[in-house]
């Protein structure tokens, strides 16, 4: 089970995040999770939103270069050691995490780890055998 993440190319300068989020806000798109990665003069804003394809359309129309990527939304307990458990399960199975970011879902007293991995199928098998749940796009919306 994968969820779709929206990634946006941005130059590393003031006002870019503001512009991206304003466009999404005006389109009534809700951001569930976000991370910003930068490398020198440029960066990538990665977002999990309620309507990824619409988000891509409105951002592209405003001139941004946008991609949609398949990532995992992994449910974690909001307690010490839970991220370590996921990370070792994946690591032991030889699955590489390209990047990840996490947020806490208050309603469920849980946390969610958004992760892009190099082998989605293998990651799903490993996490499922460890009893770790992957969230669907619908479940993410309900958080």
């Amino acid at each position, binding site marked *: 089970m994968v969820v779709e993440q929206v990634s946006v190319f941005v130059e590393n300068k003031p006002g870019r995040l503001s512009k991206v989020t304003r466009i999404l806000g005006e389109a009534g798109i809700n951001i569930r999770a976000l991370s910003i990665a930068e490398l020198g003069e*440029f960066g990538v804003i990665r977002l999990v939103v309620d309507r990824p394809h619409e988000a891509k359309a409105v951002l592209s129309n405003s001139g941004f270069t946008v991609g949609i990527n398949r990532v995992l939304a992994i449910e974690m307990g909001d307690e010490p050691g839970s991220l370590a458990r996921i990370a070792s399960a994946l690591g032991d199975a030889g699955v590489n995490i390209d990047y990840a970011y996490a947020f806490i879902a208050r309603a469920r007293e849980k946390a969610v780890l958004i992760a892009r991995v190099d082998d989605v199928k293998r990651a799903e098998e490993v996490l499922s055998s460890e009893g770790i749940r992957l969230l669907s796009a619908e479940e993410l919306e309900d958080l």
Partner: protein
Amino acid sequence: MFEHRMETMPLKELKELQLERLKATVRYCYENVPFYRKKFKEAQLRPEDIKSLDDLAKIPFTVKDDLRDHYPYGILAKPLKEVVRFHSSSGTTGTPTVVGYTKKDISTWAKIMARGLATAGVTSDDIVQVAYGYGLFTGGLGFHYGCEELGAATIPAGGGITPTKRQIQILKDMHSTVLCCTPSYALYLAEEARKEGIEPERDFSLRTGIFGAEPWSEATRKKIEKALDLRAHDVYGLSEIWGPGVGMECEAREGLHVWSDHFIMEVIDPESGEVLGPGEKGELVFTTLTREAMPLLRYRSRDISVVDEEPCSCGRTHPRMLRVLGRSDDMLIIRGVNVFPSQVEHVLMRIPGIGDSYQIIVDRDILDVLRVRVEVTPEMFSDKLAELEALRRRVEEELAAVLSVSARVELVEPGTIPRTPGKAQRVVDLRKGKI
């Protein structure tokens, strides 16, 4: 003077010599270079039709693309076994241009350079540090052979190979009295020396500098002279015609003497091709008179200047060109290296997704900086930074390989590069006013 009689020959006699040599060159080209024979036939011209210097205007121009189209050996007038050296420079697209030299060409070039060095005041007592690049570029070896011909102590310090720190050490320890390099590198050397606590006026023994291969101004001359405590001379040349030494500034420094026993210099209107007179600004066109392996007739330099035939206070009669005022094409000179925007485009076209969404920016800190801004399109985009960075570096590496000068590639958002109706502003040169 290195060759007093020739350098001071009355202009009228010099022109008679030119005509005699021109007739021989035209016949030589016609008989030995199929490219020229074809050109003459197309123009319905025979070698015997050239009876006066004015008849030169009947001969079609030779352009850089002609050399590229006959890459690598197609324009040679001598069999390869008589060629002893090749130099090569970048073409307007992926194909470079190659220039060949016979043994005699090398020795003639050395004499021309030696005459030029003497014209700039260099003598056999001097220690000359040649910090132009040695290699395919003509600068280093051109100066080197000229200095040795003159009898000066020559240090092949080779810019770009010998680190700047080492150049500074040589200047200081070996007491170089003459420095030859690009004007921007001269300023860079001075700056770096100061950072090391060296005061050029106290620690260096420089007396004269010969700077060229890129455009510079009187303001830059003053700056260099102050920074390195020397007297700066301008030198002109182009790789298709030997290399450096076609023209040199004498002590009067009111233009560069172009050696008219070896070259005929014309000025033309770059649009119409019409020949202009002395004092009129236009594109310089050169015909070689003493070259064996690769004689060129009416080669368009694309350099804009003005010719002055008035007598010079130094006593030399050879006409002078003013320092190069600009270009009649879009060629950029970056750290002494010729770069055509089309070469950049050629590299970028190989990267999927780039298309026309790029811009070239040239600026000058002390040295020239070449920046290529590339708009990130969906085809190139990745959510992984490492992949974006790998792409950026790949473009940088491919540009460096093709251009022979490093470029900094910047990934920018789409729409960042201004688009004017019809044609995007592809090249921005911010150096204007800084040169």
